[in-house]
């Protein structure tokens, strides 16, 4: 049965590659990048394993790389993949697959991935790193499959658990908040630890020692313990690894049971009062107003929209901490342009997000101008005040009037240009996005290559359009002249509005000309 699941995964992957060149391109890109990194480390590992390096250095290398690898296996399912879309356990609900076979099959099939290939290269380097000690070499060799399975199981445990228990909007918000809390909490801890030692070099052995007893790096530290002849330490670390495996197994099992044997009923949502039509009663009773009201409703209710903005509060918190603890101000000042940039791209995938519901715009004969204008208006309603706050407050706190003017100018310029460019690209350069109801972090199969190229293209256009502001900004940095700041603000506003108007007109033209083609393309992603 496990073999059947593995064959199924291979077949699904092959079909996926056959479906579009973009999938092959995207996978190849990730593979080349990952393998490139792993090869660089492999060379270092081989060189460090020649027996002339100090034991501590070899250990640090081993543990730190190991911890990084483990973190990757944890974070990628949470933020990038949103679960193995090819082998979603929910698809197996109707097949009576024995529990044991399903668990084994899913764990093994999860190992067929680009990440595994890269991890194996690193693990081979790990073996090379410890080749100067026979015992350590043997342990490194033996722990290679163990570690690969551990990583795969931890990743599988996270995806299955998210799928089983954190599917809803509310739990995702909770997760995001927890993540933010962790980021906030981690900063002072790291800073305190760093302050306790004179230099990073002094702190490193302690950090490595602590890490080597956590699931993060217990496995990679095994050969070290053997090389030192510390059998008790080796046993303890083996215990940590096996404990991690066991815990992962228990989580996978419990999550799979809850998915396949107790499918949950859809949750009930709140019922609005009759006549309570929300934003629809606030906007102008025009087609573009209706589009704006619908988009605003979606910004509030559809986690896919807000999902892209989660990074904003996280960054704000980190920036505040950086300035409070270390006195780093540039992050705080960069907040405005950054928020503007993220928000400006908020509507870059708007039509793709509509999915086939976009048919309603097609059959109702919505004009391009109304569609483009409505979407841009909905975004600007909250993006303008947010950008002004993010640009104005830090600048007012950290600098003078000149800083405020420059910061607001750069940010508004960025926002207006971003919305203008997005208004064109969202009609012209469509790419697959998570479908309605999917996790905002899900990456649709075969989208990596295409969306990467599309996004880079629009970013390049945007940077090109921002050149006047950037030049004036540099002039202001050098000269601190008031005229530079004032000109920057005026140009940012004037040119921004021009680009916005041009973007909406241009986007509308593309929309009107290619309406059925846009719809068919969106439909092909569904």
């Amino acid at each position, binding site marked *: 049965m496990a073999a059947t699941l593995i064959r199924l995964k291979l077949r699904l992957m092959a079909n996926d590659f056959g479906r579009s060149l973009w999938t092959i391109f995207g996978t190849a890109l990730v593979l080349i990048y990952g393998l490139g990194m792993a090869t660089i480390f492999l060379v270092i590992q081989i060189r460090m394993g020649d027996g002339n390096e100090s034991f501590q250095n070899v250990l640090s290398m081993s543990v730190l790389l190991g911890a990084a690898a483990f973190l990757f296996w944890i974070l990628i399912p949470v933020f990038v993949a949103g679960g193995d879309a090819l082998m979603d356990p929910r698809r197996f609900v109707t097949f009576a697959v024995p529990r044991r076979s399903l668990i084994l099959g899913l764990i093994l099939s999860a190992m067929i991935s680009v990440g595994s290939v890269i991890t194996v290269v690193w693990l081979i380097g790990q073996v090379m790193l410890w080749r100067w000690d026979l015992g350590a070499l043997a342990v490194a060799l033996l722990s290679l499959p163990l570690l690969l399975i551990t990583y795969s199981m931890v990743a599988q445990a996270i995806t299955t658990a998210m799928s089983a228990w954190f599917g809803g909007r509310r739990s995702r918000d909770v997760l995001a908040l927890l993540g933010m809390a962790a980021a906030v909490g981690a900063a002072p801890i790291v800073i305190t630890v760093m302050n306790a030692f004179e230099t990073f070099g002094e702190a490193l052995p302690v950090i490595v020692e602590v890490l080597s007893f956590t699931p993060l790096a217990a496995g990679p530290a095994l050969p070290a313990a053997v090389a030192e002849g510390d059998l008790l330490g080796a046993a303890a670390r083996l215990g940590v690894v096996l404990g991690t495996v066991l815990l992962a197994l228990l989580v996978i099992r419990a999550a799979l049971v809850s998915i396949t044997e107790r499918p949950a009923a859809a949750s009930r949502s709140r019922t609005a009062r009759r006549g309570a039509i929300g934003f629809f009663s606030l906007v102008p009773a025009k087609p573009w107003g209706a589009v704006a009201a619908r988009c605003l*409703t979606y910004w509030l209710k559809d986690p896919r929209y807000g999902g892209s903005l989660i990074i904003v509060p996280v960054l704000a918190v980190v920036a505040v901490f950086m300035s409070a603890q270390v006195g780093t101000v540039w992050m705080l000042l960069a907040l405005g342009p950054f928020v503007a940039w993220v928000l400006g791209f908020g509507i870059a995938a708007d039509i793709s997000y509509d999915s086939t519901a976009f048919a309603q715009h097609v059959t109702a004969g919505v004009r391009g101008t109304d569609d483009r204008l409505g979407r841009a208006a909905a975004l600007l309603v909250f993006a303008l005040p947010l950008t002004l706050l993010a640009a104005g407050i830090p600048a007012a706190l950290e600098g003078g009037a000149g800083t405020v003017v420059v910061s607001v100018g750069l940010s508004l310029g960025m926002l207006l240009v971003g919305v203008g460019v997005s208004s064109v690209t969202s009609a012209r350069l469509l790419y697959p996005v998570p479908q309605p109801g999917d996790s905002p972090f899900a990456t649709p199969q075969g989208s990596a290559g295409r969306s990467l190229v599309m996004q880079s293209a629009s970013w390049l256009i945007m940077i090109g359009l921002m050149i006047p502001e950037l030049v004036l900004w540099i002039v202001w940095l050098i000269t601190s002249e008031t005229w530079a700041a004032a000109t920057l603000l005026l140009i940012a506003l004037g040119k921004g509005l021009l680009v916005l108007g041009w973007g909406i007109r241009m986007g509308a033209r593309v929309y009107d000309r290619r309406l059925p083609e846009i719809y068919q393309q969106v439909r092909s992603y569904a």
Partner: protein
Amino acid sequence: MDTPALRLEGLTKRYGGQLAVADLHLEVPRGSFYGFVGPNGAGKTTSLSMATGLLRPDGGRAVVGGLDVWQDPIAAKQIMGVLADGVLLFDKLTGEQLVTYAGLLRGMDRSTVAERTEDLLRVLGLEEAAGKPVSDYSAGMTKKIALASAMVHAPELLVLDEPFEAVDPVSARTIRGLLDSFVASGGTVIVSSHVMDLVQRMCSHVGIIAEGQLLAAGTVDEVRGGQDLESRFVELVGVEGGGEELSWLRL
């Protein structure tokens, strides 16, 4: 009143080398309740998509009440209400919001939209669910709210792709009632379906399509010629499989 409500002239669509719809001519008279039937994959949805502006034809014209859908799309779409098959709705909106959205998108004023939304929700029995998000609706309720969105601007022609698919009998009756009164008041309806029985009872006209070609068209009585519609349909389209028994499928 001579111009038909919908006229398809030589509509053609090719996917790769495959002809999905081949030179389709079809005339839907004003005030008719037209059934558009065919086996799965016959080209029903493709034809209706080309008639409603969702899919650009490779050749031919689609004319709604004298207006060419591909030359004058905005005007043609104004007099047409569409329920497409297999598409999502903006289902984060409540039922009431969705119908309001449809109305405002058509450029209607707010009070008319509110009034008609209220009427539609009442007639379709969706008053209690009006404040719920459409994503919580059952299949039948979803079809009904989609129908309400397609009708709110009082179109002359309703193009409904599989309006009865996955709909329970009670909802189906409600929908039929609404469509019957729409036709009785002078409106034109074209529905695609593969439930012959329903088409025979409900429709005044019928067109049969298979493999992208129109096999027969006319009033229901003309087409069925004394037989029941299903027999006539199977006769035209042909039977698949040989009535063979599966030896292992016996208890």
